[in-house]
């Protein structure tokens, strides 16, 4: 178990990175961690409770792992074995046949590519567009700024699903159905991203901007060379969330991507069925392949993703 622990990204290894404007709030947490002990556990009863907590949590963690592990195991079993013994956790004939068949029989590689291009385009444009207005709102004064703020705030109240019908007609009228742009353009103007950037830019000292301006830097240079590089945590948080959201989006691509070769991973997997009835190893292999890219992204950026989520609740 300890081996597994050491591989999990160590929390707090580079807390400073995420410092930004909220740095002071984090101090007590680090102190507490260094003490290595939760202060609530002062007496023996608490120690017993901690053991209980560990056991209970371990149990639930195991339950939580079951679907994933079982899916992976099933995907590696021969079909015949699944039919005769579907709930077995072991096979002497593990193989990658099902994966080969899925790759061969469905355009899953094309879907990967579509998903990736769409997500990447969305991330790049979202970062650019939302950081620019975030900068404008935080560091420049212009008439109508309050109105713009209110307008974007109102956008937070509108769940995206409300817009599917009019947006579908709009995209259809623009002739963009079955193109990547049908996915990318509506996703770029994300109010949440604006507020994240605005919060970061607002945390930068006004003097910094003014000094640069006095040195003759253009507004764009101030934004691009001075302020944006100081907002890396915001950039990475928005980038990761936009990427994940785009990749996992379902209802919208279900509507606008009806050409099988233009589909993204989640929609393609849900739309195209095998011609030979139900072959569970292949179904599970499809599920695993669909989950794989984001799982890898998650493993690589676990700390950052989790911190992004956590900050939702703290602010």
């Amino acid at each position, binding site marked *: 178990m300890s081996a597994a622990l050491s591989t999990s990204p160590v929390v707090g290894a580079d807390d400073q990175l995420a410092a930004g404007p909220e740095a002071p709030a984090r101090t007590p947490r680090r102190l507490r961690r260094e003490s290595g002990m939760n202060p609530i556990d002062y007496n023996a009863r608490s120690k017993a409770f901690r053991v209980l907590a560990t056991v209970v949590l371990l149990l639930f963690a195991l339950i939580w792992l079951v679907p994933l592990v079982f899916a992976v195991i099933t995907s590696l079993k021969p079909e015949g074995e699944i039919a005769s013994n579907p709930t077995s956790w072991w096979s002497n004939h593990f193989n990658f046949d099902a994966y080969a068949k899925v790759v061969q029989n469905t355009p899953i*590689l094309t879907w990967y590519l579509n998903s990736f291009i769409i997500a990447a385009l969305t991330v790049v444009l979202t970062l650019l567009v939302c950081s620019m207005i975030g900068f404008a709102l935080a560091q420049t004064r212009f008439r109508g700024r309050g109105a713009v703020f209110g307008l974007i705030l109102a956008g937070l109240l509108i769940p995206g699903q409300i817009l599917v019908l009019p947006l579908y007609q709009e995209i259809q009228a623009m*002739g963009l159905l079955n193109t990547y742009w049908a996915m990318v353009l509506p996703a770029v103007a994300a109010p949440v991203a604006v507020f994240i950037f605005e919060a970061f830019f607002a945390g930068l000292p006004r003097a910094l901007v003014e000094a640069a301006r006095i040195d003759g830097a253009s507004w764009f240079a101030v934004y691009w060379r001075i302020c944006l590089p100081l907002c890396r945590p915001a950039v990475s948080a928005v980038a990761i969330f936009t990427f994940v959201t785009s990749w996992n989006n379902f209802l919208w691509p279900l509507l606008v991507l009806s050409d099988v070769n233009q589909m993204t991973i989640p929609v393609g997997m849900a739309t195209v069925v095998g011609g030979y009835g139900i072959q569970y190893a292949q179904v599970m292999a499809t599920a695993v392949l669909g989950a794989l890219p984001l799982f890898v992204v998650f493993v690589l950026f676990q700390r950052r993703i989790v911190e992004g989520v956590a900050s939702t609740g703290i602010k």
Partner: protein
Amino acid sequence: MAMQTTANAAPTRSGQRPLTRRALLTAGAAGLAGLAAGAAGCGSPVERGLLGTGSQPNSLVYWNLFSGGDGENMTKMVNNYSAAHPDVSVQATVLSWGTPYYTKLALATAGSSPPDVAVTHLSRLSTLAGNDLLQGFSADQLAKAGMPAGNFTPAAMQKSTVDGTIYAIPLDTHPFVMFYNVDVCREAGLLGADGKLKPIKGPEQLQAAFAAAKKVTGQYGAVVAVTNDPSTNWRWFATLYYQLGGQVMSADGPDVKLTLDNAKAEQALGFMRQLTASGLMPGTVDGAGVTSLFSTGKAGFLLDGEWQIPTYANTDLKFDVVPVPHVFGPKPVAFADSHALVLPRNSAMDDAKRALALGFVKFLLEDSLVWAAGGHIPAWLPVQRSKAFTSLTPQSNYVQAALTAEYDPPGWFSGAGSQFENVVGAAVASCQNGSASPAQAVQAIRSGLQPYLDAPAPGT
């Protein structure tokens, strides 16, 4: 790329990790770039995705909704085509059956990216054609493509035609039929000297036959899916109601009128309820239960679509299939639907592509003996009348049903797996399981359909 920015931020602080992370990312990016180059090489997905253009000559995109046994047969037919036309690349895609398929087909066509050829149920045709989603053909055009209208089962061809224009090329007729367990029926004395079921006519004879079978099985005489299967409920009801000469709806263009005959509907429902109330048939059983009861000999008869033949052909059960007996009315009528091939409307399709698509359709028709293995009656008469098919059992037993076929009523919300079937099927089920009287069920049909009848058809 955006991710790399993130990775760059870390190295000074956390040692090794970012390096491996970056290596992984680089490898991943390189892999994807390779994939992109490969895909861009053969043109379309990326090019289409970015520029909205790109089409490949000498390739066909074909959508269907067949899985299981039908899926296997269809794959065989497509492979046969590819073997005979090695220069044409066919991309056959199987989509989930029912409403999702039709939604997708409509959206793809409206989104100017339809498949070149697609399968449809003929019961859905008027809706698709009414919404201007299909290419229409004159009889001459089809004849020129080697498919004269006279070469198809007349009932199916008639259903393929809307206002004189042919919108679909029928592939088969798949009627609602009656299966019987040969051993049970022999013991019950229901078989003739030839070992075939003796003809059954009229409600009394049918009840008597079910009763005789019930005595042998000790459980049920016959079985039909009631629970969670609105379509089957509708089919069984439609068979009896159509035999009585009833009509559910009529349509004049987009305007749909309810023409339900209360008396006839109540008579049909009353008879169905009598069968379940008397215990000759179970009143609450779902699809899986039906399969289990019939395949284990606990019911002598089964009312279901002929497409279930492969389900039972794989078991030890000895069974045969006949048209649903002529219970009511002056002439036998069978409820049925047809699979047909359509060319969705596509302004980008040129004549060469259209000819290629029609050639593909014709090949499937001529190869439809393969298709018949799934229980379906080929609509293409040269195959239907061929020796190979007439000697195919049990399929050839119920060819009659294709000739007397009646379909789902017209209307934009009607057709296979539609809201219409859901509404009527639910009401029929409530009558069969005894939770509603026939009169109440008729009322439920009326009130359930009313919102759709009141609503304007889409696009008007």
